């Protein structure tokens, strides 16, 4: 049940999982929108965890997610402003947001260790999916050098987050 819901949450990113030619991939305004949306979703998930969780390690992880993802998104906003790019809403962003709302509702119904475990499982799956999309599609498709560099830094960061989530989850069991 949990696994299925978690997989549903990352389905939109899987649309991008297969490597494609840069020309066929999303445009820079779309990439900016997807990256920002993906970051904002994880900030909200972290804020939800900070409201609900009483576990020290889970809270420390959630604080890190909120802090790091906010930092990337601030930088992303500054960059699109500088480049005079208007982030373009698209099917992937819309689908990500829809699924995030569903995940948040599902997690809201859980409490205590059940919430903590479900949150961490979702974080592992979510970062894995985002990283896959960054690596296979978003980074190769980005035309602007600065956007590409920001996505690459994002990938290095999110890999750390994935490892951190896996570590906390392993300790949790």
């Amino acid at each position: 049940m949990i696994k299925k819901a978690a997989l549903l949450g990352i389905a939109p990113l899987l649309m991008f999982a297969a490597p494609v030619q840069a020309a066929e991939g999303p445009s820079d305004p779309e990439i900016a929108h997807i990256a920002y949306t993906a970051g904002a979703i994880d900030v909200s998930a972290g804020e939800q965890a900070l409201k609900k969780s009483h576990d020290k390690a889970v809270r420390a992880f959630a604080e890190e997610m909120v802090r790091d993802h906010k930092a990337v998104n601030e930088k992303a906003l500054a960059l699109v402003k500088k480049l005079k790019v208007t982030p373009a809403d698209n099917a992937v962003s819309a689908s990500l947001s829809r699924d995030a709302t569903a995940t948040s509702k599902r997690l809201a119904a859980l409490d205590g260790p059940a919430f903590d475990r479900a949150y961490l499982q979702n974080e592992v799956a979510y970062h894995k999916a985002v990283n896959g999309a960054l690596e296979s599609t978003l980074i190769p498709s980005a035309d602007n050098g600065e956007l590409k560099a920001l996505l690459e830094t994002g990938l290095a960061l999110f890999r750390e987050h994935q490892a951190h989530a896996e570590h906390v989850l392993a300790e949790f069991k």
Partner: protein
Amino acid sequence: MRATRLLTIAPIAALLLWLPPSAAVAAPRTHVVVIDKMKFGPTPNDVKVGDTIVWDNRDMFRHTATGAKGAFNVDLKAWTKGETVMRRAGRIPFTCKYHPGMRGTLEVKAR
């Protein structure tokens, strides 16, 4: 008055003349390690006990420079610097406690 001052300074100045040149070279130094794009930059290879390491966090993220076995721990908010004095000789692996995949090693030599 002036003569008295001269008298007190003169012996010190004389002593300074006698200091071997190596004493000046061996004075504690400051080295910089840059943190950027989720990585610790190259570490200096001539660090001695008593030297200061300035950690220059140029990332948009909060990091730490945390030495193994409690050697040092500096909290580094985004775009800030922090420093630590190397207290003992040896090989000190360090990491960022928020992003443990970020790693480096300092070789600290005895003075």
